[in-house]
C-alpha cells in the first residue's frame, strides 16, 4: 500500500512538472507574438518603431482633427501635448461610442511613413475613465488634468 501510494505521488508530480514545463514553454512562445507595446506620440517621435510592428499608441484625440476618409475610414491625430501622430483608422469595426475629440484613447496598429494605421480603437464604458498608460504619458509631458466632478 505504502509503495503504491508513493509511486502514485511520484507519477502525479512528474505529470504536473511535464504540464507546467509545457505551459511555460507555450507561454514563452505565445508571449512573443501576443504582446503589443504601448508608445506615446513622443516615444514614436524619438524612436521610430520597426515597420510592421503592431503596437498601441495612446494619448488624447487632438481637437479639430477628426476628418472622414473613404468609406468608413477616417483620420484623426493623437497627441500627448508635446508631439502628435497622424492616425488613419482602417479597422472594420465602427468607432467606439465614446470616441471624440479631447478624449483619451488607445489605438492598435502599425506605423508606416509617418502615418499610424489603426485597426482597433480602445472603447471604454465610462466617460470619466482614462487608460492608465495615457494618464502616465500625459503626466510625462505635464499636460494631464484631473477629471472634473467626482
Amino acid at each position, binding site marked *: *500500500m505504502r509503495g*503504491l*501510494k508513493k509511486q*502514485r505521488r511520484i*507519477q*502525479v508530480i512528474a*505529470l*504536473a512538472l511535464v*504540464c*507546467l514545463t*509545457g*505551459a511555460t514553454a*507555450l*507561454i514563452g*512562445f*505565445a*508571449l512573443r*507574438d*501576443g*504582446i*503589443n*507595446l*504601448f508608445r506615446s506620440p513622443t516615444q514614436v517621435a524619438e524612436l521610430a518603431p520597426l515597420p510592421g510592428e503592431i503596437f*498601441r499608441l495612446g494619448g488624447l484625440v487632438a481637437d479639430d482633427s477628426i476628418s*472622414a476618409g473613404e*468609406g*468608413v475610414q477616417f483620420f484623426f491625430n493623437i497627441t500627448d501635448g508635446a508631439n502628435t501622430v497622424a492616425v488613419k483608422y482602417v479597422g*472594420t*469595426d*465602427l*468607432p467606439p*461610442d*465614446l470616441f471624440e475629440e479631447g478624449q483619451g484613447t*488607445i489605438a492598435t496598429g502599425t506605423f508606416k511613413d509617418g502615418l499610424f494605421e489603426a485597426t482597433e480603437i*480602445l*472603447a*471604454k*464604458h*465610462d*466617460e*470619466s*475613465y482614462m*487608460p*492608465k*498608460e495615457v494618464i*502616465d504619458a500625459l503626466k510625462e509631458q505635464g499636460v494631464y488634468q484631473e*477629471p472634473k466632478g*467626482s
Partner: protein
Amino acid sequence: MLNELAHFSLNIALGFAVFGTIVPLAGATLRRSSWMQLAPIFSTLQFILVAFAFGALTVAFVSSDFSLRVVVLNSHTLKPMLYKIAGVWGNHEGSLLLWVLILTLFAACAAVFGKTLPQSLLARVLGVQSSITAAFLAFVLFTSNPFTRVEFPPFNGQGLNPLLQDPGLAFHPPFLYLGYVGLSITFSFAIAALLEGKVDAAWGRWVRPWTLAAWIFLTIGIGLGSWWAYYELGWGGFWFWDPVENASFMPWLISAALLHSAIVVEKRDALKAWTILLAILAFGFSLIGTFIVRSGVLTSVHAFANDPERGVFILMILGVFFGGALLLFALRANAMDSKGVFATVSRESALIANNLLLAISCFVVFVGTVWPLVAELLMDRKLSVGPPFFNVAFTPFMVALAVILPIGSTLPWKRAKRAHLSRLWPVAVFCLACVGLTWAMQTGRSLIGPVGLGLGVWLVMGVLIELYQRTGRGTGKWSRLLSLPLADWGKATAHAGLGITIFGVAGITAWQVEDIRVMAIGDSAEIAEFTVTLDNVEDLRGPNYLTTMADIKLARDGKFIANLYPERRYYPVAEMPTTEAGIDSGLWRDVYVVVGDAQPQGGYAVRTFIKPLANWIWTGAIIMAMGGLLSLFDRRYRVGSVAARRDPVEGEA
C-alpha cells in the same frame, strides 16, 4: 433617518463580525462548548444587520433620495424602476455592500444547514467566515461608505451609466458575486479543516454542494456578462480575453477543478491536501479578480473609472487571507493523510488529469493577465497581452481536457480494464470522420472549426454512451436510466453543456462572415447568402434617451426573414451615446447588424456579421449551470438534512 440607522447597523455588524471571529475560534481551540455555540447566532445577526442596511440603500435608490452621494452619482428620477434597483449594485459602494451581504448570507446558510456538522468544525467555519466579513465591512465603512450624505442635495441625479441599463447586466453582478463570494465559504471550510487537522469523506460531502452552488452562479454570471458584451457593445464578440473578464474566468476554472477533486475526497478518500489547496486558491482568485477590477491597475476595455486607494485596501485583504491561508496550508498539509489507493488507469487518475489541466490553464490565464504589470515593474515596459496569446497558450489545454473528458468519465473508480473503453471507439472514429469531413468542406480556413466541432460531438456522444452503459444489460433499461441518481444526470448534463459551448465557440470563431460598408437609404447588400436592405432611418425618443433607429430588412434567396432595428442611442443625462445591435437570432446562425453615425458624404456605415452557432455558446453555459443544479438536488445532500430534522437536539430548539 433610515440611512443613519442603516449606517449604524453596519457598524454593529462589524462588531458582531469581530466577536464572531474571536469567540468561536478561541472556543474551538480551548474546547469551550458554550463559546462555540455562539457562532451561529453571531453569523445570523450579521446577516440580519447587513440585510437591513442593504434594504435601506435599496429604498434610497427606489425613492430617489438625493441626499445620498451614491444615489446622486448613479440614479435619476426618469430611470425605469428595474434600473433604479439595479443601480444599487451598479456602483462601487453599493456593489461592495452586496458583496458583504452575500458573505453574511452564506455564513447564515451554513449556520442553518450546518447543524449536523461537528460543533468545533462549524464554529471554525463560521469564525473564519466572520473574519472575512469583518475585513470587508471595514473596507466598506472606512473607504467606501454608501451612506455618505451630500451637503446640498441636488434636484436630480447623474443617472446610471447607460451601458448598464440593460436587463442582461442588471442581473450580471449579483450572480457573479454569488459565485465569487460563494467560494468564501469553501475557503472557510478549508481553513477550518486545516485548523482541525482533519479532512474526511464527510468534509468532502459538505464542501461539494457549496462549491457547486458557487460554480453554478459563476457560470450564469459569466454567461450573462458575455451575452451582454455580445449584443450591447456592438462589436459582436463574446469574449475579449480582457483582464476584467479573466478575473471572473480564473475562479471559474479553479472551482471547476475543486468540484471534481472534492468528489475524490468524498468517494475515495484521496487528494485531500490538493483539494484544500484548490479551495484556498479558488477564493484567492476571487480576491485577485476583485483587486484587478476595482484598482484599475490593468487597462481593460471594460474599465470603469476607479480609485487606486481602494486597491491598496483590497491588496491588504488579499495578502492577509491568501498569504495566511497558504502559510497555514504549508504548516498543516502533511496532516492530511490520504488513504485511498488507485491504479494508473482509473477514474481517480482521470480526475487528477482534469485538475492538472484546469489548474494549468488557469495559470496560463493568470500569467497573461498580470504580465503587463510584471513587465512594467521589472522591465519598465508598457505593453498589453492580446487574444493571440490566449488563443495559442490556453486553447491546447482546453482541447486536451475535452479529449480526456468522455474517457475519464466512463472509467470506473480504483482500477479500469480496457473493456470499459470499448464502446467509445466507434464514437471516436465518428468524431474523427466529422473533423475530416468539415475540414474538407471548408477548404482553406483554420483548423479551429473542424476540431471544435469534432470535440463538441465527442463530448455529447460520450455522455450518451455513458448513460447507455449505466443502463446495464437485459430488460428494464429505461427504468434503470430514470432511476439513476440526480448527480449522474447532472454530470451528464453539465458535460454535454461544455460540448455545446465548445461547438458554438468553434463555429463563431471559424465561420463568421463580416462586412462593413456605407449604405444610403434604399441600398441593398449581398452578404453570404443573405440580402440586407437599409429601408429607413428615423429619430425617435425613448423613456430616458434619444435614438436614431435604422429599419433594415433581412432576406434570403429573395424570401423575407425579418426586420432588424439597430440603434444609436444618446442618453442626455449621462451625455453618453450607446450602440444597440439589431440581431436576428436563429438556431444555426445569428445575423447581427450595427449602424454607425451618418457619414459626411451621405448614407450610414452599416456593419453586418453572420455568426454561425452564436447562441450555442450561451445555451451551453445555461445547460452547464442546469447540470450543476441537478447535481445539487441529489438525494445524498438532502439525506443529511433529513437526519438533521430527526436530531434530538434540534427537536428541543
